[in-house]
């Protein structure tokens, strides 16, 4: 690739210290706070995307066998949109927000001012290596921070390309890429950051948060979970099936944080649903999906082995009703559906993150909520397909997840007015749109007082008269206040 990025021999704690020190100096000098700087960096990302689309698509092909359309739309186009939105809206986002003031602080004016945290660390994931690296970075830049980005080593071609592109297009005194695995990440985590933004799994997230705790560093953790799809019976089955397929196999072959993980439907409706899946899957991917170019592969042999194990478990291997073909050499598993899977199976007790779709059966569709809530952990997303208004309402009221979608899957990702993030095991904090700006901003309360009126009631010596007046001020009743000032007792 002709990369000119110098790969350091060992990126250890000392090296990490040096990087942080340089960024702190740049930040202290005020570079990243300037509006022009922020605009220039966002424009640089836009240019980076526009001028290197073929290379990005090729890197994603190499790392994930990701279909070109998925790369162009879900990584490049979405990223460009994030940049364009920030460029358009940033002038509004950075304005202080006026806050109302009340009698207790009269006379005064108050506002909430957004300021950057300072030097932030963004740790990205392997499944959408460009999007999940640069989307948070867009927010960090818009908010005026200096940034270290650590892309995932499990997508090495993308990591390498990102490092090269950032070095070429962006201001390296304020934005750096550090490549590597456990050693490098640990070295980075030992440093004091002003904010850490992590995308990945719950196990590593605990390590990240524990490291952050040593420095009281606030974190955003974008994790995952088992995102359920509840399917009611009186629906447009073909549309519903297509949307589930698009969200599952159409998103990196099920390796996405908000991919439908499993389906819950009634015993009566299940046969119809399975038939519909079979029909539409063949329509999209042909008779031999293992050879289709429209499906990402499994990212590496570790995950291939993990998914195989899920399929091979005794309780479950007999439940496959569609697919199940595997090609170990090319790391491909065909879209696989399992019917009536027991809830204590392996496949129902970890996030699948792959092209396997178990279907859980219930007697009545209302029972699905119990199934979903019984897993004990809150997923990043939950989906419901129904035309029943009451069911929709119950869904929103009783199912807790990062985000909910009725009658579709994954689309809420594209709505920048919706906060994107998890709750409980699926994460903490949110981003996208203005929420990205907010995630990387400290909201400072600022109160301006004049020297004019001074409330003598605040000061000692404390007397009953002052107490009466304070009471009246708290209750806000004008009559009470007047009474207290004149020393009249309440009738």
């Amino acid at each position, binding site marked *: 690739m002709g990369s000119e990025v110098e790969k350091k021999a060992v990126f250890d704690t000392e090296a990490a210290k040096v990087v942080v020190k340089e960024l702190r100096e740049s930040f202290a000098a005020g570079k990243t706070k300037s509006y022009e700087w922020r605009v220039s960096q966002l424009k640089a990302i836009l240019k980076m995307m526009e001028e290197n689309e073929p290379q990005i698509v090729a890197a994603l092909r190499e790392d994930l066998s990701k279909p070109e359309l998925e790369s162009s739309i879900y990584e490049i*186009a979405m990223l460009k949109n994030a940049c364009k939105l920030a460029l358009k809206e940033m002038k509004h986002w950075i304005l202080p927000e006026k806050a109302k003031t009340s009698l207790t602080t009269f006379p005064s004016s108050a506002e909430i001012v957004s300021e950057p945290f300072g030097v932030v660390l963004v740790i990205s994931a392997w499944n959408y290596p460009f999007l999940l690296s640069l989307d948070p970075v867009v927010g960090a830049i818009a908010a005026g921070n200096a940034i270290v980005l650590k892309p995932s080593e499990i997508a090495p071609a993308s990591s390498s390309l990102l490092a090269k592109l950032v070095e070429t297009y962006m201001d390296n005194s304020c934005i750096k890429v550090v490549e590597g695995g456990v050693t490098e990440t640990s070295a980075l985590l030992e440093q004091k950051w002003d904010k850490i933004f992590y995308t990945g799994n719950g196990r590593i997230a605990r390590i990240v948060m524990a490291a952050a*705790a040593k420095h009281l560093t606030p974190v955003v953790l974008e994790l995952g979970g088992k995102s359920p799809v509840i399917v009611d019976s009186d*629906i447009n089955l073909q549309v519903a099936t297509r949307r589930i397929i698009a969200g599952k196999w159409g998103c990196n072959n099920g390796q996405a944080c908000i991919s439908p993980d499993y389906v819950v439907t009634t015993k009566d409706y299940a046969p119809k649903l399975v038939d519909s899946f079979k029909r539409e899957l063949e329509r*999209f991917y042909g008779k031999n999906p293992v050879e289709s170019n429209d499906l990402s592969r499994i990212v590496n042999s570790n995950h291939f082995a993990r998914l195989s194990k899920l399929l091979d478990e005794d309780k479950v291997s007999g439940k496959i009703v569609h697919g199940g073909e595997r090609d170990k050499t090319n790391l491909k598993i065909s879209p696989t559906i399992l019917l009536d899977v027991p809830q204590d199976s392996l496949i129902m007790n970890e996030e699948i993150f792959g092209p396997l779709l178990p279907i859980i059966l219930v007697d009545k569709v209302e029972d699905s909520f119990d199934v979903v809530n019984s897993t004990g952990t809150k997923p990043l997303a939950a989906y419901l397909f129904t035309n029943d208004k009451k069911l929709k309402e119950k869904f929103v009221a009783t199912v807790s997840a990062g985000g909910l979608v009725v009658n579709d899957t994954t689309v809420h990702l594209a709505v920048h007015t919706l906060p994107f993030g998890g709750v409980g095991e699926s994460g903490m904090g949110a981003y996208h749109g203005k929420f990205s700006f907010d995630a990387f901003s400290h909201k400072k309360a600022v109160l301006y007082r004049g020297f004019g009126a001074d409330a003598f009631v605040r000061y000692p010596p*404390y007397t009953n008269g002052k107490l009466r007046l304070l*009471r009246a001020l708290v209750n806000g009743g004008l009559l009470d206040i007047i009474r207290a000032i004149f020393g009249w007792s309440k009738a």
Partner: protein
Amino acid sequence: MEEIKDNLERELLVMREYFRSGRTKEADWRRAQLKGLQVFLKENEVDIFKALNQDLGKHYVEAFRDEVGLLRKSLNLALSDLKKWMSSKERLLAVVGALAKLPIMAVLSYAEVVPEPLGLVLVISTWNFPLALSLEPMIGAIAAGNAVVLKPSELAPAISSLLVNTLPNYLDNKAIKIIEGGPAIGEKLLQQKWDKIFFTGSGKVGRIIMSAAANHLTPVTLELGGKCPAVLDSLSWSWDKEVELMKVMIKKMYGDNPKELHSVARIINKHHFQRLKNMLTDPMVEKSIIFGGSMDEDSLFIEPTILVDPPLESAIMTEEIFGPLLPIITLDNIEDSIDFINSKSKPLAIYAFTKNEKFRKRMLSETSSGSLVFNDAIIQFAADTLPFGGIGESGVGKYHGKFSFDTFSHYKAVARRSFLTDFWFRFPPWNNQKLELFETAYNYDYIGMLLVILGLKRSRMRFDVN
């Protein structure tokens, strides 16, 4: 201890079950609890004043101004705004935004953000405003619909006792529990899984709390402290005249014999008394005392004390004082105060007394703190439209007013679609034309889309990596 731990786990399990029943989510439940707190404060005001006086030597007017009064104000606000806070207020905005901004493929969606409680939350309070710092977070937790466990500070035992013994009579004990105890109980509590932990206290303990929370991926709000500077611009006189003025004011407020007046709270306990005594009796520091300095260990009394230019490496200038000692640092130029402040960790608040517009602007943009107040001190605590919280060493997260509700809520994104329209280019098998359509859709380029569909737009150079 094991027995206590098992009992605790069982109690918490029951509380979780109750939460799952959905009772605490109901608006009338939340209102009833908030009203219960109002009645508690009203009916027990005398006992509260007595307890605060016993624990801290706090005068009842100060107790009202800083604790009871503020809580009453917060409760009034929570009750009057509860319906607004609970509603999916974002719905309209999101729909409008959605219609205006969504790529055409999602144009038939409705989008809203729905607040929901996090579940079972832990509030750990502290000793200096033992009532306010216990109940203020609790107001937010209840308003947001959570089940709550409160651990008040053992260093303010009279208030802690009042909360454990009397408060339960006013609240739903199936969802709200108050647990007394010191570090041992604190540790047991931290081993449990919570849906949120709200902590007020020191940075040292804050780190322990956040580390424990990390085990369960529990989000935290940490209200900590720091060295809050007050920057005094020359205004219309020099600093030594300012000091003279301070001496006069102190005498006016506290009389010639502050110890006798009972308007000054005492030091909380012998440990803190000794800590402050050590700060003052450091020989390098003692020299710089220009007012006050007298101490009485028996009554845990330390006089309001002013020092000028104690050495910067001394404890009094490197640790949070948390006591009645006020060091004054003099500088050649007031602008140098910015570098001075920035050389230390970010405080909870900065107070700047100045009429200089330029200096004000520099303060605002070049320093960082939880809050910044011009020409006053402390009062931001009472402004419930301003977020109250720290940054860096002074804390994580914020509360007060609606921010309390927010800090104990999860804002759930909800998007709805109809079955009616779907765009065929959304689904594989993929080809160049579908890619073009997506691209024009994402660029909100509807004319472009039409041209592609009609076959009139020339496909731009595509590369073949398949």
